[in-house]
C-alpha cells in the first residue's frame, strides 16, 4: 500500500492513476470502490481487514493525494456504479456522502458521523463499544464506584447513555457533568472531583482539550483517582489507561456490514456498529501512583507507555 503514497507535485500523474484504477476495475463479480482518507497505517490495516473478509473486485482511491479534486474523482467513481463504497476515515466518509445518496456507503474508522445517518449509510465506528469499555474499567479498577464523565450533550450524549446501563450492571454509577464549552468543562472537573472515584474522558471535541486534559490529569493524580482516556496520546501524557482500537478488526467489522448489505439488507436497518476488540494502553508510572495492580492477567497483552 505504500505505493499509494505520493507528493503534491505528482498530482496530475495521480489523478491519471486514480482514473486508471477506476477504468481498470475488473468486470464481473462484486465491484467495491474503496475511498481512503489517506494511506496511513490505520486505514491500510482497516482495508486489509475489510478485503480479507469481503472478497470482491476492489477499486482504490486515496483522497489525500487528490489536492482539491476529491469530489470530482469521487463523483467519477460513483458514476461507474460500484456495488458498495467503503469510506475509510472521516474525510472519505464526508466526500462519499456528498457524492451519492443511492450507492450504499459503509464507513470505517469514523469518529464523527453526525447524529443522523443518511439512509444509504451504515458503518463501523472507531469507538470501542461503551459496554466493553465499562467492563474493562471494572477489571482494571475493582474499587471504582462513581465514574465521572464531562461531556457536551451535543456531541457525546449517546455514549453516556449507552454506558449508563452497563455501569449499573457492573456495580458502578456514571456521574454525568454536561458542559457546553471549555470553561464549563474545567469547572466540572474542578467542582466534580469530590463526587467521583475516577474520570472517563470521552472523545468529545468540546471537553477534550489540551488544557482540560492537563488539568484533570494533575488534579486526579493529586487525589489518587484514575483517568481513563480515549487514545494512546493521553496515556503518554499521564492518563492511567486507554482502550486502543484494533484497526484491522474494525475493517473486518465493516466487511460484515458490507456483506449484509450486498445480500440485500438496507444500510439504514444496520446503522452503526462499535469496535469490540482492543488493546489496553497503560501508563505504568501514573498507574502505580494510583495503586493499580499491574500484575493482573489483563496486563499480559497491555501496551505500557510512560516513564
Amino acid at each position, binding site marked *: 500500500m505504500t505505493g499509494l503514497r505520493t507528493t503534491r507535485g505528482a498530482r496530475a500523474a495521480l489523478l491519471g492513476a486514480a482514473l486508471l484504477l477506476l477504468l481498470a476495475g475488473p468486470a464481473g463479480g462484486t465491484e467495491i470502490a474503496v475511498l481512503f482518507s489517506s494511506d496511513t497505517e490505520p486505514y491500510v490495516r482497516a482495508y486489509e481487514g475489510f478485503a480479507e473478509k469481503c472478497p470482491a473486485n476492489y477499486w482504490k482511491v486515496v483522497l489525500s493525494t487528490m489536492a482539491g479534486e476529491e469530489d470530482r474523482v469521487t463523483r467519477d467513481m460513483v458514476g461507474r456504479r460500484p456495488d458498495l463504497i467503503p469510506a475509510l476515515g472521516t474525510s472519505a466518509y464526508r466526500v462519499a456522502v456528498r457524492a451519492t445518496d443511492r450507492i450504499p456507503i459503509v464507513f470505517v474508522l469514523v469518529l464523527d458521523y453526525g447524529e443522523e445517518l443518511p439512509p444509504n449509510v451504515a458503518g463501523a465506528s472507531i469507538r470501542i463499544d461503551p459496554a466493553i469499555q465499562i467492563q474493562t474499567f471494572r477489571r482494571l479498577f475493582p474499587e471504582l464506584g462513581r465514574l465521572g464523565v464531562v461531556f457536551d450533550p451535543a456531541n457525546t450524549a449517546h455514549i453516556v447513555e449507552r454506558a449508563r446501563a452497563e455501569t449499573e450492571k457492573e456495580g458502578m454509577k456514571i456521574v454525568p457533568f454536561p458542559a457546553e464549552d471549555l470553561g464549563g468543562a474545567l469547572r466540572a472537573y474542578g467542582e466534580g472531583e469530590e463526587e467521583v472515584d475516577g474520570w472517563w474522558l470521552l472523545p468529545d471535541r468540546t471537553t477534550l482539550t489540551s488544557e482540560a486534559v492537563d488539568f484533570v490529569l494533575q488534579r486526579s493524580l493529586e487525589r489518587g483517582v484514575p483517568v481513563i482516556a480515549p487514545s494512546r496520546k493521553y496515556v503518554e501524557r*499521564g492518563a492511567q489507561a486507554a482502550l486502543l482500537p484494533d484497526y484491522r478488526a474494525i475493517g473486518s467489522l465493516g466487511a460484515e456490514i458490507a456483506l449484509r448489505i450486498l445480500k440485500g439488507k438496507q444500510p439504514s436497518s444496520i446503522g452503526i456498529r462499535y469496535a469490540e476488540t482492543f488493546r489496553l494502553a497503560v501508563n505504568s508510572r501514573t498507574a502505580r501512583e494510583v495503586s493499580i495492580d499491574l500484575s493482573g492477567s489483563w496486563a499480559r497483552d497491555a501496551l505500557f507507555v510512560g516513564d
Partner: protein
Amino acid sequence: MENREKPGGGASILIVDDEPFIAQSLLRIFRREGYAVRVAGRAEEALAALRDDPPDLVFLDIMLPGGSGLGICRTIREDPLLRGVRVVLLTALGRESDREAGFAAGADDYITKPFSPARVLARARTLLDSSPIGGA
C-alpha cells in the same frame, strides 16, 4: 503575583510555574507538610523572589512568560548567593531533551507532570536532606 506564606519551622520552597493549577497543586502539597512556600508565575518575579530571600528549593517550569526556566537555573548556579539553592525542573512527559538541557544548566532533579504528592514530596525531602543550607 507573588504569594507568600510563613509557617514556622519548615524549609522554604519557591514554585515557579505559570499554570495556576500546577502551582496550586504544589502549593497544597507543601503547605500540608509545613513548608514555607512562595509562588511566582513569571521569570522576572521568580528572579526577584530568589534574590529577595533565597529559598532552599525551587520547582521550576521550563517555559515561562518573560523568560526561560533554564535561564533562571543558570542564573542560580552562577550567583554565589544562590549557589546552594536546589533546583527541580518541571517537565512534560516525553520531553527528554528538556531534562538533558536542565541538567546541563545545573538542575539537581526533574519531576514529570502530572505528579503525585508522594513522588514530589519524596524528591523534595531527598534534596533538602542533602542541602548545604539546611534540611526540612
